[in-house]
C-alpha cells in the first residue's frame, strides 16, 4: 500500500494562513493503515490547527470529513457540500487523493497535509518499508520475489555491490542488502542457477515513469 507521513504542522499552518475556514479531509484507505491521514489523524490535526490559530488570535474553523477512498471520484464528490462552505482544503490523502480533489474542485485551493513516501508493507507495528517502485515491468520472477529496484540503493539488477557486508547495506546499516536477501531466498529454493544469468538493462524509457505520464486503458471496461 501507499505509505505517507504527516507534514510538519508549521508547514500546514503556513499553507492555510490566509484562510479562516477549511475542510480537513482524510482518506480511509492506505493513509489510515499507516496512521498518517485517516479519521483519527483528521481529528487530532483539526484540534491542533484550531489551537495553534487560537493562540495567535486568528481562530480557524475546521470541518472534518474522511472518505473511504479519496482517490475514487465518487467518494471525492461526497465532499461537494462541505467544500462549498470553506475557503480551502487540507487533504491528508496521498498525492493521488489530493489530485482527485483538485480535478473535481477546480476553484478550491487544496493543500497536501502529508508527504507521500513509498509503496510499502507493514513490517511490524509502527514500521513500514518500501517494497515497490511501480517500475512498470515486474522482475520478481528473476530475483526470488525480492525487489532490487525498490530495495537496493543502487537499483542493481546483477548485484550485490562491494558494499554488502554481513547482510547489510553500506548506505543504511539498518537496511538489509537486497541482494543478500535474493541470494538467501534463491539458495533456500534451490534456484541459485538463476543468479548466473545476466539480467539485461531495464527499459526505463519505455516502461517506466521516464516514458512520461503513464496510463492504463482498458477498452473492455469503458462505458
Amino acid at each position: 500500500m501507499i505509505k505517507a507521513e504527516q507534514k510538519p504542522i508549521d508547514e500546514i499552518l503556513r499553507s492555510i494562513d490566509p484562510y479562516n475556514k477549511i475542510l480537513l479531509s482524510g482518506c480511509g484507505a492506505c493513509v489510515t493503515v499507516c496512521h498518517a491521514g485517516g479519521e483519527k489523524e483528521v481529528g487530532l490535526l483539526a484540534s491542533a490547527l484550531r489551537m495553534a490559530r487560537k493562540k495567535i488570535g486568528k481562530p480557524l474553523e475546521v470541518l472534518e470529513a474522511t472518505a473511504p477512498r479519496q482517490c475514487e471520484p465518487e467518494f471525492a464528490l461526497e465532499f461537494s457540500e462541505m467544500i462549498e462552505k470553506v475557503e480551502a482544503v487540507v487533504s491528508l490523502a496521498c498525492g493521488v487523493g489530493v489530485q482527485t480533489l483538485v480535478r473535481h474542485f477546480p476553484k478550491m485551493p487544496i493543500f497536501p497535509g502529508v508527504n507521500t513516501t513509498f509503496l510499502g508493507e507493514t513490517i511490524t507495528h509502527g514500521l513500514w518499508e518500501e517494497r515497490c517502485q511501480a517500475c512498470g515491468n515486474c522482475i520478481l520472477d528473476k530475483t526470488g520475489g525480492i525487489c532490487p529496484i525498490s530495495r537496493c540503493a543502487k537499483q542493481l539488477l546483477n548485484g550485490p555491490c562491494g558494499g554488502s557486508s554481513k547482510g547489510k547495506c553500506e548506505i543504511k546499516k539498518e537496511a538489509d542488502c537486497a541482494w543478500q536477501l535474493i541470494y538467501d531466498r534463491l539458495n533456500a529454493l534451490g534456484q541459485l542457477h538463476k543468479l548466473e544469468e545476466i539480467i539485461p538493462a531495464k527499459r526505463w524509457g519505455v516502461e517506466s515513469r521516464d516514458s512520461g505520464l503513464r496510463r492504463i486503458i482498458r477498452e473492455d471496461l469503458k462505458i
Partner: protein
Amino acid sequence: MKAGSNLEKILSKGLFAVTGELGPPKGNDVSVVKRKADLLRGYVDAVNITDNQTAIVRMSSIATSTLLLQMGIEPVMQMTTRDRNRIAIQSDIFGATALGIKNILCLTGDHHTFGNQVDSKNVHDIDSIQLIDCVKTMRDQGTLMGGEEKIEGKIELFIGAAENPFADPFEFRVIRLAKKIKAGVDFIQTQCIYDMKRFKEWMKMVRDRGLHEKVHILAGVTPLKSGGMARYMAKNVSGIIIPEEIIDRIVKAKKPAEEGIKLCVEQIQELKEIEGIHGVHIMAIEWEQMVSQITEMAGLLPRPKIE
C-alpha cells in the same frame, strides 16, 4: 589485440602487470595531476583514473586521462554508472576513444550519499555488468547498446571491471565474476586485499570454475600508512576486511608507515605466487610517492617496454 593498450600487451604476453591509481583534483588544478602522474611514471604499466570516487566531485576521468596521455602515461579510465545514463555513457565512450583512451574500468560507483552532493539524483540507468556488455557491444559489434545503430568509427577498448572478494555474500562473489566474464570483461582489479586466507579461498573457487583462464585478475593492494588508518578502514569501510593481526602489526610498529610498506611488499610477493593472478593494482591513496619504493622492493622493476 582488442585495443592495443600497453596493459593489454603486457597481460597478453603473460607478463606480470602493475597498475597504479590517481585520484583527480577537486578542481581544475592540472599541476596536481602532473605531480601525481610523475610519481607513478615508469613504475606502473597503466594508471587508473578514478571517476568521482566516493561521490566527491573531482576533475572528470576523461579529462584527467587525457592529461595523462599528453604526459605519455597510459590511463585506465574509470567509468561509473552512478552519474550517467546510457546516452551519456556511450557519448563519453565515443569522446574518450577519440582522445586516445584505450582502457576502461566499468564500475557502478560509490553511492552518492557518501559524497559532497548528497542532494543529487543518482542515475543507475544500467549497472556495471550491463556497462561491460554495452562497451563490448560497441567494440565488437560496432553498434550502440541494444540497437541496430551503427557506430561511425571503431571503438577499441580493453575492458576492465572490479571485483570484491571481501563483500558478502561470499559464495556469490565468484558467480558475479563469472557474470562479468560472460558480459565480456578482459581484466579484473580486486578490492584491496588484507585477508589473504579469504582471498586464496576465493581464488580457489575462481580456478575451480576455470575463470582464471578467461580473464586477467590483478590483485588490489593498498599500503597502510598508520594504525589509525588500518583501524578506520577495518571499522568503517564496508567490503574491506583487515585481520586483527595486521592491524596489530601496524599499530605496534615503531615506524608504522615503514611497516605498512613492508607489509604491502610481502603481500605482493605472496599474491604473485597465486595461480591465476596476472598482476597487481597498487592503490596508494594520496601516497603515490611510495609506489616507486613498493615496486622496487617487490622486484617488479623495470617495467617491460613493449612496442
